[in-house]
């Protein structure tokens, strides 16, 4: 629909601008608050022009929350989730779309159903598994009486234990195992013409070859999109890292914000808290800025 009314255009522009202001204002407040000293930040109303204490606030926040270590943890965590997710979902979707084996629809739906079970819903069992990855097997042994038999005949008590608490694997793996990416890739693969597979088959390419030479290059923009979404999502994840890590040196930056947010008995150092927030906010912004070009090209490109 193309409207050529000048007035209508102006109204649209104004509305868009208002929307922009509304969504950018909180970030503006954060940035301004991070530059004030303790007195100015607690004035009511807080002054909306920048103060002079940004560097001081920044270094206080950095040392207080030990962001040096926590940012590295966060980067490893978010990259791990993003890469793991891209790899797992591309492979699963490839299998589901391109191979005609028995029960693949069932498998697809099983994968799909996990969309309805976000981490927050299954957090208790997930924690139990992360605490001891082998606990489900232990349970099987116990229920079937095998561990009793072993204890009875050999005197050895079977107690399988392999914990992932306070480790990167424990942070990353439970977040990798969801269906969002698989679904995205499946939908994309279904849009690729069948002749492409057939031409590759005629040219002698096997399944792995086809995956590397055709699927990966063709889904480059999808990979960029999924990677970005997953990186930002994992970076912002709070509940799971809080639960699974107790060692301060294993904690991620978002959880680290706890150390700079003032609590009810401490000084109301919101300037430091806001400086910390800025630090934590920055990496996802950088990732989005870097992948944005690919991202947008993926949405615009019509060549298939």
């Amino acid at each position: 629909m193309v409207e050529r009314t000048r007035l209508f255009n102006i109204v649209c522009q104004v509305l868009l601008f208002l929307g922009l202001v509304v969504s950018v204002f909180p970030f503006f407040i954060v940035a301004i608050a991070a530059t004030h000293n303790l007195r100015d930040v607690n004035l009511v109303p807080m002054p909306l022009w920048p103060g002079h204490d940004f560097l001081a606030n920044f270094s206080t926040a950095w040392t207080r929350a030990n962001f040096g270590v926590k940012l590295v943890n966060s980067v490893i965590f978010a990259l791990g989730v993003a890469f793991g997710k891209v790899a797992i979902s591309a492979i699963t979707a490839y299998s589901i779309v391109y191979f005609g084996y028995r029960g693949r629809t069932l498998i697809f739906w099983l994968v799909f159903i996990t969309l309805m079970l976000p981490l927050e819903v299954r957090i208790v069992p997930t924690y139990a598994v992360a605490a001891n990855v082998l606990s489900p097997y232990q349970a099987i042994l116990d229920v079937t009486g095998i561990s009793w038999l072993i204890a009875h005949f050999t005197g050895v008590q079977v107690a399988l234990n392999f914990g992932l608490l306070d480790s990167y694997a424990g942070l990353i793996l439970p977040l990798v195992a969801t269906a969002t990416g698989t679904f995205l890739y499946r939908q994309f693969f279904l849009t690729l013409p069948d002749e492409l597979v057939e031409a590759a088959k005629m040219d002698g390419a096997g399944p792995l070859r086809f995956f590397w030479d055709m699927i990966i290059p063709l889904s480059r923009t999808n990979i960029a999109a999924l990677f970005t979404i997953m990186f930002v999502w994992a970076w912002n994840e709070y509940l799971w890292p809080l639960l699974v890590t107790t060692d301060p040196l294993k904690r991620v930056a978002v959880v680290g914000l706890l150390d700079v947010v003032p609590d009810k008995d401490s000084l109301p150092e919101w300037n430091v808290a806001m400086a910390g927030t800025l630090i934590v906010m920055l990496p996802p912004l950088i990732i989005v800025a870097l992948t944005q070009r690919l991202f947008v090209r993926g949405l615009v490109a019509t060549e298939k």
Partner: protein
Amino acid sequence: MANISIRQVEKSYGKTEIVHGLDLEIASGEFVVILGPSGCGKSTLLRMIAGLETITGGEIAIDGEVVNDLEPRERGCAMVFQNYALYPHMSVADNIGYALKVSGVGKEARRAQVEEMAKAVGLDAYLDRRPGQLSGGQRQRVAMARAMIRKPKVFLFDEPLSNLDAQLRVQMRAEIRKLHRQLGTTSVFVTHDQAEAMTLADRLVVMRAGKVEQVGTPAEVYGRPASRFVAGFIGSPPMNLIEGAIDTDGAFTPTLQHGSALPLGRTDLAGKTVLLGLRPEALRLTAPVAGTPLATVDFVEELGASRVLHLDWAGQVLSVLQTEPTTLAPGDIAGVEVPPEAAHLFATDTGERLRGSANRAKREAEAVP
């Protein structure tokens, strides 16, 4: 180069049978065109030869080796697809050379072969482009080069020209023919376009509903269609098919026509109801003479080099193709002259050709003087 034997091949999806026990022998170096209406199973047959569809029954052998259970790459076939199926993210050079890359040919050797191929199809200036930057005809050439570079035993074409405009189609047709003359590779070409089929084929296979209706050279298929279906399917404008009876003198009387029987000398068919097939170009229009078949002109289609006159022959539609100009206008009455050797007779029930019709009539016509 290789011959292809197709023996009792069947294909079904679940309970739906697409191809019913089909037999076909393709000689080494032959250019065979499979022609048929859409949904007749011709593409399925081609894809079974290529190995893209499993064979539900019977067997296909290439070069004496049964290929039923071989992967496409092991069969030595190359295929050109209807929508080209080029790899969109690869340059023209990579597209053409992909098969070589897969089979592990080194970069230098590959480059040389790709360049040679590209030159052969006139694409050497476009090697660095992406398929999206090429025109339809150029993409078609890339697809051809990609198929040729592997030096396959068999070329398979799945309606490769149907996405091109009319002019380019004629041009590509000539090029395919030329390439086949140069390379001499056994080729199977599937199409629903009869002009394409007639011009390209060494041998024509007409298919209908999963069965072969007729196999022969284009001239044979055109000149002696084996069934009513083939008669109606090949030829433009299509053959006139008129139902009627043969009387005791062996003359044909159209069911709707009153009087004026056509003497065909087919006393062997006396008393039977048959379908008479007449090619539009075999008929001639004369001045109306009483006692001969008369028809009224409905309208005239002017084609430049020739013209098609649509006539009403006592309720039957009759088209006549003639090269000489005509003065006949709609509503005029003309006599229709039917040379006995132009008559094709088909059984009304099975649609099969009633053998010997043209020859017998001709022999008798020759025997008269």
